[in-house]
């Protein structure tokens, strides 16, 4: 019998060949991709990893080194800067 906690699909199922037989492994799912706060597109240059691995990374590997880097996408930052200066 399977453990009750593994009946739901919260865990990813992986078939692995080990010593002549196929066995089932249950693996934790990765966290979701980082998305732009305005348009919702996937952000580039932001790693998709568990927080304990992101902790080990350097600051420059976690987000693009730009204004609003890791929060807005490149197009949305451009829009926000233009809107700000046209009003002036």
């Amino acid at each position, binding site marked *: 019998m399977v453990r009750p906690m593994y009946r739901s699909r919260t865990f990813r199922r992986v078939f692995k060949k080990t010593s002549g037989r196929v066995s089932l492994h249950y693996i934790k799912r990765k966290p979701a991709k980082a998305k732009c706060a305005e348009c919702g597109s996937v952000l580039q240059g932001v790693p998709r990893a568990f927080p304990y691995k992101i902790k080990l990374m350097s600051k420059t590997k976690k987000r693009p*080194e*730009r*204004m609003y880097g890791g929060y807005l996408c*490149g197009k949305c*930052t*451009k829009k926000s*800067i*233009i809107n700000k*200066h046209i009003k002036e």
Partner: protein
Amino acid sequence: MIDVGRVCVKTAGRDAGRKCVVVEIVDKQYVVIDGETRRRKCNITHLLPLKDTVNISESANHEEVEKLLNELGIDTLKTNPKKKTERPRSKRKTPEQLKEQKEEKKKLRGILKSKKEDKSPKTTIEDKAIAEIKETDKGKDVNEDKNTPQKEKKKPAKSKESSAKRKKKE
């Protein structure tokens, strides 16, 4: 719109959101900018021109740009470049220095030899004493007991020599 002396805002890249002045026109597509940003080549599509203009000659220095922008109330980038330091390099010793080295070594050798010579007569006296004891026909156990403490006495004498060497080197 974009000419030499036009104040712009950069909208892309690391310097996004910072103000700058067009210093030089390279191409249809590219210009050289300076000011709050780093002095660098830049695509025109990454610039947003503003109302203000500055009287600047082509390919002006960073100091000239700094003066004019500060009048408009725009800060400029200030860098603190590292001063160049000389690399530590091992130099060859001059022949005079080599001679001094040799003389020092010779002195040390002389001290060591004299100490070794001093040792040898000491041992001979002790050996003679042991030989005399043997002649008196005392038990073997007594001789063995006397031999062992002699070896122990020699060891601290060596350590004193090494300490004397270190002091002279210093």
